[in-house]
């Protein structure tokens, strides 16, 4: 055995030292169909090249063939974990093109649902991220609470995941009467549940060892690589679009933006958990202060009429028929509307040529850019740390590939 241990190193040319390893596209910890081509030296990562596009369905091309209102259900399919953020961002962009005023009640409902969506998304992230690292229990706990959010969405929109609840000009329907009470009851219990997750993870030696000092990303790299959302704030940049460039009435809500300068996977975990607590606060404020009034803008040529009005008034019926068969024209121009989604800056670039179909819709999705930082996070670390880093940027391949 002795001469095996002291066997002379046969490798002297540098090209022979490394080998290429494929991680994905069917690897469970890549959260979908991400393929990472790793160049490794022993177990140390030398290079990482993400290979994406396995889920590319040409949504941007499909949008160009649909009426403006028909694009809303397509946007759900981009980021299937936070569909309402996509709905919101697209609707805000088109409303900006139309210069349409949205009633306050609709804005507050949108804020409430955005925050519920953020909670939903962060719960999925927390469960799967902890599971990647080996803490299986948290996954079941998180999905228990997520199920409650999905049931609320089911009651609200008739769909658990692809809600398509937002409309250009407002929201689709008045929520069912018990929706507010159930949401309030859920929000009341959630902070205790977040404590439960933290009991399982925050003091957990294994979890700390797997995340602290792993996946480091400096402030300069984060900015130059286009990183947004929790990974950007974990790198010490105090930037949240909800506070700094408010949309949909976010300026009326009080909340804190957690920031950390640790730059590692641990910091991203801590920030997202704090963000969940802040989301509970925002959602509660939205419930408490929900104004009365209409839920759709007063624009009969753009917003579909109520069912009741359509069946009793000739004009409403004509508008309904026109919108469904011909769509509505949108004045020519281009807008870029960004919101803070669960993962960072989500932006919709919508170009109109004056017709009823968008000339071009482009989605700027947060993890598409953040994925570029994966090499900075992983080089010089072990393969197991790649799993932690990929989990920490909370990727959704639907929005990367579109």
């Amino acid at each position, binding site marked *: 055995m002795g001469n095996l241990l002291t066997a002379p190193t046969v490798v002297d040319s540098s090209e022979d030292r490394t080998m290429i390893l494929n991680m994905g596209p069917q690897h469970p910890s890549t959260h979908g169909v991400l393929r990472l081509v790793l160049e490794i030296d022993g177990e140390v990562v030398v290079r990482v090249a993400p290979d*994406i*596009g396995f889920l590319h369905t040409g949504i941007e*091309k*499909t949008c160009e063939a649909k009426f403006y209102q028909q694009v809303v259900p397509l946007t759900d399919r981009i980021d299937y974990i936070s569909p309402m953020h996509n709905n919101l961002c697209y609707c805000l962009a088109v409303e900006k093109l139309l210069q349409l005023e949205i009633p306050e009640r609709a804005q507050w409902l949108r804020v409430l649902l955005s925050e519920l969506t953020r909670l939903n998304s962060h719960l999925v992230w927390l469960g799967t991220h902890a599971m990647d690292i080996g803490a299986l229990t948290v996954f079941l706990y998180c999905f228990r609470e997520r199920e409650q959010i999905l049931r609320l969405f089911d009651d609200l929109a008739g769909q658990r995941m692809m809600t398509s609840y937002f409309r250009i000009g407002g929201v689709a329907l008045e929520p069912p009467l018990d929706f507010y009470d159930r949401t309030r009851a859920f929000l009341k219990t959630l902070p205790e549940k977040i404590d439960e997750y933290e009991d399982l993870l925050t003091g957990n030696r294994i979890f700390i060892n797997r995340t602290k000092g792993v996946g480091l990303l400096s402030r300069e790299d984060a*900015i130059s690589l*286009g990183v947004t959302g929790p990974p950007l704030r974990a790198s010490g940049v105090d930037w949240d679009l909800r506070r700094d460039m408010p949309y949909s009435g976010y300026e009326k809500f009080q909340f804190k933006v957690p920031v950390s300068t640790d730059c590692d996977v641990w910091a991203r975990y801590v920030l997202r958990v704090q963000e969940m607590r802040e989301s509970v606060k925002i959602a509660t404020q939205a419930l408490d202060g929900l104004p009365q009034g209409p839920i759709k803008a007063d624009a009969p040529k753009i917003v579909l009429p109520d069912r009741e009005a359509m069946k009793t008034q000739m004009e409403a019926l004509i508008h309904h028929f026109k919108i469904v068969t011909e769509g509505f024209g949108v004045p*020519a121009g281009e*807008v870029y509307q960004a919101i803070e989604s669960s993962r960072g800056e989500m932006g919709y670039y919508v170009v109109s040529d004056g017709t009823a179909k968008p000339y071009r819709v482009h989605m700027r999705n947060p993890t598409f850019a953040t994925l570029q930082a994966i090499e900075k996070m992983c080089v010089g670390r072990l393969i197991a740390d790649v799993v932690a880093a990929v989990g920490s940027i909370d990727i959704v391949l639907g929005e990367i590939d579109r």
Partner: protein
Amino acid sequence: MGLVTDTGENKDAVLAAHADHRAIAALTQHLPDAIQNAKFDRGELTLTLARERIIAACRTVQAAGYNFLADVTCVDWYPNRPRFQISYHILSHPLKQRIRFAVFVEEGDPAVDSITGVWPAANFYEREVFDLFGVRFGGHPNLRRLLMPEDYRGNPLRKDFPVEGYR
């Protein structure tokens, strides 16, 4: 097709009305010949730049505080000319402000300099535009297809590419 037929007679008026805008001030001072057109529409500033000045313009606004590249994408104005509009969305964290750069390129020579040297974030965006529109980016470190298969032929987001694909 408002964008293409806009010949730029409003340029000076827009530049004068927003003279204290940080990006306009920096560009008119350092690169006065770069701005071909300016538009202020729905609260958004769009500056059309000369194709060969895009890197210099990005460096100028970066120095002026526009530190974050949010997005690069393309619009195909087929059959109008020039055909392709490359749109750059740039954000300033300190100023809480966005600007848009537009660069127009012709169908016969769809190429523009890559800005990956200014913002490495442009890497994936430019590859995506190259993949889906066939616009080349000079000086890009790895200009290969990103979303479509590597042996794919055609550029799906061009307007002369049918929605259902070629059969």
